[in-house]
């Protein structure tokens, strides 16, 4: 069965949410819950590190798109770390990277742009 592990790193000026495992129809509610909790408590930007995930599909992108919309209403941005070609491909196919989500190769760059 698919498994998802999520860690929230609050040691930086903005939170970094690090995800490991598979993001699919079964596990995306867990990611949705963590993102929703963060967005409800802070209007700051959010760094979402997807570099260690093994799988993502439209359900995961749907959660990220929904969260990005909620955060953008509070002037915040979701900054996604991802270097895997397959993950980049699904972002490109979805067109999500052209909207409220900004993609980065490195965490330091995402943190530098965050507010």
């Amino acid at each position, binding site marked *: *069965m698919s498994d998802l592990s999520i860690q929230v790193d609050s040691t930086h000026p903005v939170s970094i949410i690090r995800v490991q495992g598979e993001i699919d*129809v079964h596990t995306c509610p867990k990611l949705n819950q963590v993102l929703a909790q963060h967005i409800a408590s802070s209007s700051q930007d959010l760094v979402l590190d997807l570099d260690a995930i093994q*799988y993502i599909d*439209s*359900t995961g992108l*749907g959660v990220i798109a929904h969260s990005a*919309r909620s955060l953008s209403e509070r002037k915040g941005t979701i900054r996604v770390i991802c270097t895997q070609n397959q993950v980049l491909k699904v972002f490109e196919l979805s067109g*999500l990277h052209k909207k409220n989500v900004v993609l980065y190769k490195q965490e330091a760059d995402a943190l530098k742009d965050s507010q």
Partner: protein
Amino acid sequence: MSKSHKPVCVEMTIPSSSEFVSVVRLTLSGIAARLNFSVEDIEDLKIAISEACTNAVQHAYEEGSHNTIDLVFNIYSDKLEMIVKDTGKGFNPKDAVSEKDSSGSVDKFGLGLGLTFIKSLMDEAHIESKLGQGTTISMTKYVPQNA
């Protein structure tokens, strides 16, 4: 592996429940690896089969009902055909909301985008759905000639 006109057939039936979608991906990975698909192709196949199963899990049946999804993998020497069939509510494919005109619902984003992924990642994709009778999604990917 079998000649193109005579496939080896693997069939499986899963409960219409989200936790079994990853089991389908695992099964598919094993089958696709026998066909000399590249790692990238296998990842594309995994997304396509997951999107088809997710569509059935999320939209075919009433929540809490105990229904099933039938899957067929037709393994040819030069291609893999995957069929995902439910006998649920069915839908009009024209009503599938795309990402561009989504009202903001996570579900709608998933449905429209899932079908887009299937069509983008597979060489052939056919969706047949009849209201009240169910949905069948057939997808084919060809093995690269130089594999």
